[in-house]
């Protein structure tokens, strides 16, 4: 009895090993063998660009193969812009970063020196091949009658937006609201602070990224209005059905310029500078500008885009971060640093006051 017992437990271990190896082999065998890609780029991006870069990556890979004969595979990582920047600072090897705002790439330059401080001058249009803005998504037929930013501050309106500490989009949302009230009150900062505070009092869920927030709003049915990237708003209508939601364009919003940059330290070590540079340059070509408009971003060379796509971008008054807030690093310091204005107006449990 006791004699065959050790063999038994060995057999158990063996069975486990064979099982695991078998599963791996099965999955490996079920899949066609692919040629090894000669070069891989890692693009660390923010949340709502998944569909955009899937299309861009295919087009660029084709373009690069035709031009050089080399096969390029682009791997992407998506998440809240601030969190993604943090990962790059902590050592995530991104060949290129394509984030939601210049402030996040500034942070990478400042904290890790993986790219020079003047990165934004290296590509046209402040290194932003596309722009976007901030709009509202409301439920079908707009039951709360949301027309403009002022409606978001009214009691009883449920607002959904991500956390500005981790999400780039949320910072644009916040600053757009601030700019609206500044404009309305002829630059009364105190009024703007109270206004934004009133909006955040209506926020019940602060997700870490734009995607999480959209899921909260669209799938979990939380809130009456979702402050959203314009591109994300169109995508939400496409995904969840135009019979469920409507887009509301406020009277004034902010010009969001999501920038792109090469991470010098990574491309120099990996020897990928040429292809990484070509990848970013490609974003400014007619082919890419067309894809950009198709994916609901505002192309900065609209002449290359389809008219049908452009018709989805109504003219609204757009203010810039440099004009109203004196640039990202200043806005970041004043509003989103520890103990900054956002920390002052948004205190957990503040709603119970």
């Amino acid at each position: 009895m006791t004699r065959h017992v050790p063999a038994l437990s060995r057999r158990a271990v063996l069975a486990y090993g064979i099982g695991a190896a078998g599963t791996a082999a099965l999955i490996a065998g079920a899949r066609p063998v692919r040629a090894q890609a000669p070069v891989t780029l890692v693009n660390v991006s923010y949340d709502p660009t998944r569909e955009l870069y899937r299309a861009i990556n295919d087009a660029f890979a084709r373009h690069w193969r035709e031009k050089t004969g080399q096969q390029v595979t682009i791997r992407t990582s998506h998440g809240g812009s601030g969190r993604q920047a943090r990962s790059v600072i902590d050592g995530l090897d991104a060949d290129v970063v394509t984030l939601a705002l210049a402030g996040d790439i500034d942070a990478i330059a400042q904290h890790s020196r993986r790219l020079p401080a003047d990165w934004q001058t290296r590509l046209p249009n402040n290194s932003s091949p596309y722009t976007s803005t901030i709009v509202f998504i409301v439920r079908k037929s707009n039951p709360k009658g949301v027309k403009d930013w002022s409606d978001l501050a009214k009691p009883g309106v449920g607002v959904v937006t991500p956390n500005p500490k981790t999400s780039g989009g949320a910072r644009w949302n916040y600053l757009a609201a601030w700019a609206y009230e500044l404009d309305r009150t002829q630059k009364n900062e105190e009024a703007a602070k109270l206004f934004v505070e009133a909006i955040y009092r209506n926020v019940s869920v602060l997700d870490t990224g734009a995607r999480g927030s959209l899921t909260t709003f669209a799938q979990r049915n939380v809130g009456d209005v979702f402050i959203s990237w314009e591109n994300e708003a169109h995508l939400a209508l496409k995904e969840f059905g135009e019979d469920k939601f409507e887009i509301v364009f406020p009277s004034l919003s902010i010009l969001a310029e999501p920038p792109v940059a090469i991470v010098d330290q990574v491309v120099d070590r990996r020897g990928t500078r040429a292809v990484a540079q070509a990848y970013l340059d490609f974003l400014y070509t007619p082919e890419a500008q067309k894809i950009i408009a198709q994916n609901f971003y505002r192309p900065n060379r609209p002449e290359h885009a389809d008219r049908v796509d452009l018709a989805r971008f109504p003219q609204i008054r757009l203010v810039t971060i440099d004009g109203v807030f004196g640039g990202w690093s200043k806005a970041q310091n004043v509003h989103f640093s520890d103990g900054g204005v956002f920390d002052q107006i948004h205190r957990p449990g503040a709603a119970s006051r």
Partner: protein
Amino acid sequence: MSEISNPTVASALSEPRWVRWSLILIGLAYLSLVVLLPLAAIFTEALRKGVGALHEVFADDATYSAIILTLTVAAITVPLNLVFGVAAAWAIAKFEFPGKSLLITFIDLPFSVSPVVSGLIFVLLFGAQGLFGPWLAANDIKIIFALPGIVLATTFVTLPFIARELIPLMQEQGTAEEEAALTLGASGLRAFITVTLPNIRWALLYGVLLCNARAMGEFGAVAVVSGHIRGLTNTMPLHVEILYNEYNFVGAFAVAALLALLALVTLGAKSLLEWRYGDALAGKGRH
């Protein structure tokens, strides 16, 4: 025998019928609500668009590499914790030494620490801005946002499973049988293989299964150190979240179903072993 044939004593010894039945019903209802229903939901969601859609999900490069990465991580983590767990349990149960209770406390630590913290400590240690960051960068060694970091975080989180299964059992069993083997002239290793191992084999197997299940399923700690690069550093649980965030609900639930299936297979394997070697199991423990 005689008590059972006596109806008065039998009813005094067992609960009234309605108590028994309501307990069984409560147990079943609770299990259905908390375990079976969500499990069924995963599989129905995954199959909602048919088997063809499933094929598409698993033909995807990113999904494939997530599966391979998860299996690789488990294949490294489980043996590591197996060796450590047996060694630690052996030391704690069979010897007296200073700092023993401290060791037990530290083994429990990963259970009580939030997984996010478990991930962050490795970023603080091995991240580019971390303690060893500059040295690692100078020697071109990648830990965070690569396989080693994911393995480290997973090992940390799953560390207690095997040790925790073994310690109480080995403490209860004591050292008498090993001492007998040693006095009869067996070497230490032989005593371990022929006496200790058979005594702990079921607890060990159970610990390995739990450890494996958690290693494949860990989300929080891995999310911090992964970097979420599709096709490179994405594990299956992270891939489920990514697919879900891309509105690819069939894909998300398909990968989730595969994860659940892997867990069910491990549980099935355990039941099979118990059934096949039931007599050996019955002879478990001291006899």
